[in-house]
C-alpha cells in the first residue's frame, strides 16, 4: 500500500515537472500533496497544517473562477449516523456563502434525497435557495430515481437535459459534462452509463479542441474503487477513452461519502464528501452502510469541494473542506480530515 501511494505522489510530481510549473508553484503543489487527506490517512504522509491553513485562507485568490461541488445530501435520512441532514446541508451552504471568493455555480453530484419523496426535494430546494450561487447543476444519484425511474428528478432538476438527465455546458473556456450512471442498473453490475449516453458523450466532445479543460461529473465514481460494493461504473472505460486526447480532465463524483483521488496521466479523479453522513473506507466494514461517528466528529467527515480554475495555467485546484472548522480538526484526532488539495495541470 505505501508503495502505491508513493507512486501516486511521484506520478503527480512528475506531471508537475513536465508541465514546467515554477518553483513556487511546485512547492505549493507539494504542500498540497502533503495535505492530501487520502494520502495522509492511508499512506502516512505527514500533514502540513501551515500549508493547509494558508491555502484555506487564500483559496480561490487569483483563480479565474471557482465552483463548488456538493454531494449526497440524502434529505429525508434520519438514522443515527445523522438525524438532521437538513441542518448539515444548511451548514454546507453557509460555508459556501462565507467563502471569500463567490463561486460561479454549484454542482450537486446526486443523492439529493433519501427516498425520492416530493417533500424531500422540497426541503432540498428550500435550503439551496439560500445559496449565494444561484446556478446549480444536478446529476441524479440512485436515491433520486427510486420509484419513478427519475421522472420527478428530471422535471425538477433536469430541464433541458437529455435521456435520464445528462447534459453539458461551457463556462469561461471549460467544458462541463454531467453524466448519469444510476439508471437501468443490471443485476450483479455496478454503475452504468449505457450506449445511448456514451454515443452522446462521444459526439458532445468531438467539437472541442484538445486544449479545452474538461470536467466530467457523475454520481457513482467513473473509476473502479471497490467492485464488491459496486463502487465503480461498468462502462466508464469507454467514456474515459473519449477524453484521453484532452490535456486536462477532471472527474468529480460522489456516492461513496468520502474523499478518494487518483491521477492517471492527464485525468484526475476525485470523489467528494457527503453533506449527510460518512461511509466506511472500502472493505473496512461488513457493508457500505452509513457510518456512525461520535456527534462531535460528524462535521469533520462531511464537507464540500471547492474547485478553482486558473486560465493562464489551465489548472484546476480541487479543495475539500470539512463542515467543521479546519483549525479545530487539526487539533483533534489523528487521521481526521483536514482539507484535501489536489492540483491538476493541463
Amino acid at each position, binding site marked *: 500500500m505505501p508503495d502505491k501511494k508513493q507512486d501516486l505522489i511521484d506520478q503527480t510530481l512528475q506531471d508537475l515537472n513536465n508541465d514546467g510549473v515554477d518553483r513556487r508553484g511546485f512547492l505549493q503543489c507539494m504542500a498540497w500533496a502533503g495535505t492530501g487527506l487520502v494520502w495522509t490517512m492511508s499512506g502516512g504522509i505527514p500533514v502540513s497544517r501551515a500549508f493547509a491553513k494558508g491555502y484555506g485562507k487564500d483559496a480561490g485568490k487569483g483563480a479565474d473562477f471557482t465552483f463548488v461541488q456538493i454531494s449526497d445530501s440524502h434529505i429525508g435520512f434520519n438514522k443515527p449516523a445523522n438525524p438532521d441532514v437538513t441542518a448539515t446541508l444548511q451548514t454546507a451552504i453557509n460555508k459556501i456563502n462565507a467563502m471569500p471568493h463567490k463561486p460561479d455555480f454549484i454542482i450537486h453530484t446526486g443523492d439529493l434525497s433519501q427516498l425520492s419523496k416530493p417533500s424531500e426535494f422540497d426541503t432540498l430546494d428550500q435550503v439551496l435557495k439560500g445559496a449565494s450561487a444561484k446556478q446549480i447543476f444536478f446529476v441524479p444519484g440512485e436515491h433520486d430515481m427510486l420509484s419513478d425511474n427519475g421522472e420527478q428528478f428530471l422535471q425538477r432538476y433536469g430541464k433541458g437535459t437529455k435521456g435520464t438527465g445528462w447534459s453539458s455546458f461551457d463556462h469561461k473556456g471549460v467544458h462541463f459534462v454531467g453524466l448519469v450512471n444510476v439508471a437501468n*442498473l443490471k443485476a450483479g453490475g455496478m454503475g452504468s452509463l449505457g450506449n445511448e449516453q456514451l454515443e452522446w458523450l462521444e459526439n458532445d466532445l468531438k467539437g472541442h479542441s484538445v486544449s479545452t479543460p474538461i470536467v466530467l461529473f457523475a454520481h457513482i465514481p467513473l473509476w473502479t474503487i471497490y467492485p464488491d460494493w459496486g463502487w465503480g461504473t461498468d462502462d466508464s472505460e469507454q467514456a474515459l477513452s473519449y477524453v484521453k486526447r484532452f490535456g486536462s480532465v477532471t472527474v468529480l463524483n460522489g456516492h461513496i461519502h468520502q474523499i478518494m483521488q487518483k491521477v492517471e496521466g492527464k485525468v484526475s479523479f476525485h470523489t467528494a464528501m457527503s453533506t449527510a453522513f460518512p461511509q466506511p473506507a472500502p472493505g473496512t466494514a461488513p457493508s457500505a452502510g452509513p457510518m456512525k461517528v461520535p456527534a462531535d466528529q460528524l462535521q469533520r467527515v462531511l464537507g464540500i469541494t471547492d474547485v478553482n480554475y486558473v486560465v493562464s495555467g489551465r489548472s484546476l485546484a480541487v479543495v475539500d473542506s470539512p463542515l467543521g472548522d479546519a483549525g479545530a480538526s487539526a487539533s483533534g484526532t489523528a487521521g481526521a480530515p483536514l482539507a484535501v488539495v489536489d492540483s491538476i495541470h493541463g
Partner: protein
Amino acid sequence: MLRKNMWVAGVATPVMIAMLLLFAVSPSVKASDQPSAANAAVKIDNFVFGPQTITVPVGTTVTWTNADDIPHTSVSTEGVFKSKVMDTDEKFSYTFTKAGTYPYYCTIHPKMTGKVVVQ
C-alpha cells in the same frame, strides 16, 4: 340469552385451560416459531440478502424485510415480481405458485443479488 352465554363460557373455559397448559409445558413455543410450508423469510442486512438462495415448496409466500439504514428493493431479473422501495424495517411479500428458479436483485444496489428456488 343467559343460557347461551353460559354455554359458550362452558366450552371456552376448558379450551383456554388447555391452551394455558400447553404454553406452561413448552413456554418457548409461539405461533410465529412454528415451521410453516407456506411462509419463508429473507432478511436484508448489511447489503446482503440472507439467505442468498432460499429453497421453498410451491405456494410459499416469501417475505423480504429490510434491516438496513438504507433503502433496498427486491426485483426479479425476469420481471416476475417487483417490490416497491423498502425503507428500514419495511417488508415485501410474494407468493410463488410455480416451480422454478427466480433470480432477483436490488435495483438500487445491483451488486446485491439473490435467488428463490421453488420446488
